[in-house]
């Protein structure tokens, strides 16, 4: 694909969430929205306006909400969960584990406010280990779309899938990477650009900044490929092995801790299938703090410039 960088600004994934699930509900009477009292933030309110009788306020009680979703799923309904990533993953984790993941129930865990962009809320609302946690659960599919185009496709895919899945959505508008003709295929990683010197493996909205980093590197004569992994589980092993064969350096880049997320997953797969030296860019073992988006990206080394800087140091070492 051809890209012009910097990439154009896209739409917030959370708006896409409200709109897309409303569209899906118009097509599928089994779909309901369960909201943990943040519908005005996650934009479940868009769904509520379209389908007031299928919007179910569950109050500030996430453990019960996930349990109710499990029970509804056994009755043939398809509940989508509206809350923040921080409150969807860890607080009701035991409910997800016992009532949803293990019994493979058809619940769509679709929170927004992923990663660092949480509206300057700080450490309680910024969760950077959600992918590590969710991908460790049995039967749980984990998808982290790059932009609003892919978010819409991932949500449509989730509605048609019979089983538990986690779709990690963002709060704020980030760059738009994909055109309207983009296709989402579960378990397929996508080459955004080819590169000879280094392969950058990225996921979620971070992929847009990773692509921009690759452009910055190209201007300096470093040829960096970008492999976008929208499906963190199941992983595209073939594409990762191909990446390791193509370039000497494999670098994972994620708006997430380097412990157990994309970097961990790639390290697991390549250590088994094609032992490779892997460098992981992401949050180190740090406690996070609040701040404007751009400042946080800079602070944690995830802005386009900071990613380029780290990759440059690695390639030239």
């Amino acid at each position: 694909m051809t890209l012009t960088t910097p990439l154009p600004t896209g739409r917030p994934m959370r708006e896409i969430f409200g709109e897309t699930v409303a569209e899906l509900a118009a097509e599928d009477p089994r779909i309901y929205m369960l909201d943990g009292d943040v519908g005005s933030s996650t934009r479940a309110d868009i769904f509520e306006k379209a389908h007031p009788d299928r919007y179910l306020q569950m109050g500030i009680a996430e453990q019960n909400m996930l349990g109710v979703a499990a029970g509804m799923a056994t009755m043939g309904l398809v509940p989508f969960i509206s809350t923040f990533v921080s409150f969807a993953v860890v607080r009701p984790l035991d409910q997800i584990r016992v009532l949803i993941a293990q019994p493979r129930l058809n619940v769509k865990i679709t929170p927004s406010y992923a990663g660092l962009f949480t509206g300057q809320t700080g450490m309680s609302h910024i969760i950077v280990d959600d992918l590590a946690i969710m991908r460790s659960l049995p039967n749980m599919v984990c998808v982290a779309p790059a932009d609003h185009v892919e978010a819409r496709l991932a949500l449509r895919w989730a509605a048609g899938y019979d089983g538990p899945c986690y779709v990690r959505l963002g709060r704020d508008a980030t760059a738009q990477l994909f055109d309207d003709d983009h296709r989402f295929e579960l378990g397929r990683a996508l080459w955004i650009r080819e590169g000879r010197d280094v392969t950058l493996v990225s996921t979620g909205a971070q992929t847009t900044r990773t692509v921009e980093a690759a452009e910055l590197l190209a201007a300096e004569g470093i040829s960096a490929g970008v492999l976008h992994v929208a499906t963190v589980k199941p992983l595209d092993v073939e594409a990762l092995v191909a990446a390791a064969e193509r370039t000497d350096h494999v670098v994972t880049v994620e708006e997430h801790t380097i412990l157990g997320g994309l970097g961990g997953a790639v390290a697991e797969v390549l250590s088994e299938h094609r032992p490779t030296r892997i460098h992981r860019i992401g949050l180190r073992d740090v406690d996070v703090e609040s701040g404007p988006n751009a400042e946080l990206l800079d602070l944690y080394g995830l802005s386009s410039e900071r990613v380029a800087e780290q990759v440059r140091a690695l390639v030239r070492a």
Partner: protein
Amino acid sequence: MTTAIGAAPPDLGHLREMARRIRVEVIRSVNHARAGHIGGPLSAADILAVLYFHVLRIRPDHPAWPDRDRFILSKGHSSIGLYAAMALRGYFPVEELLTFDAARSRLQGHPDMTRLPGLDMSTGSLGMGISAAMGIALGARLTGRDVRAFVMLGDGECQEGEVWEAAMSAPRYGLDNLIAIVDANRLQQYGWPGDGPDGRIPPQREGELAAKWAAFGWRVLEVDGHDVGELVRILGQAVAGDGRPCVVIAHTVKGKGVSFMEGHYFWHTRAIKPEELSAAMAELGEPPPDVGGPATTEAGR
């Protein structure tokens, strides 16, 4: 066995016999597995017998029947009591109870809905079953099905915060097809120290549970959880909805049916000695056990 029996007039003698058989199979299976819980299944036996042989509209030969009533054992550690009731009701052979807790068994230590048809939810982490039951009751309403969701909790389990999240939420949806039964056996695994039996005190104060559920907007009924006639009567009232979810607080005795197990927290889970097995079976009116031998069958009763 293919039709719901909820409407049939109850044969109290049969219900008592089924409760006795549940207790026998609990003791036999736990002894055989050398694992599992005892006190809780014994306190729940009469309730399970009344549910599975009178109240629930179920088809054991069609466990996935969409319009069946659902039952969730939120106090999942009493699984062997539920399995015994299901086996006696015809879901699977009574002999299979001896596979309880074995590797690759359908009868897992805690109920696993992916393994055993007829289980309406996996449980084991306490406090969760009531949320799932609420989802079922809500789902039944939303899909226009006349399905009732029953869930059994322990009184110790009512210390879990999630129970009260569900208790707050369910009345908002007017779910009078949701019936919670608290097996209030007045003991938990270990409990707070105090001047009660064996130096432990009950999970709640006298009257505390009824007051709390009522305060959360539930219809509250109380019953002697070992009086099958009263259980039939009170559960009959519980299913006659008035727009509110209903909780039945069943006052029970942990370890009920075996004198030396009754009222002692340490029979929550414990290996049974051979002489205790003989004594327990004798109290339950069973012939002396052939330790580890095959279970008696429904046909041989």
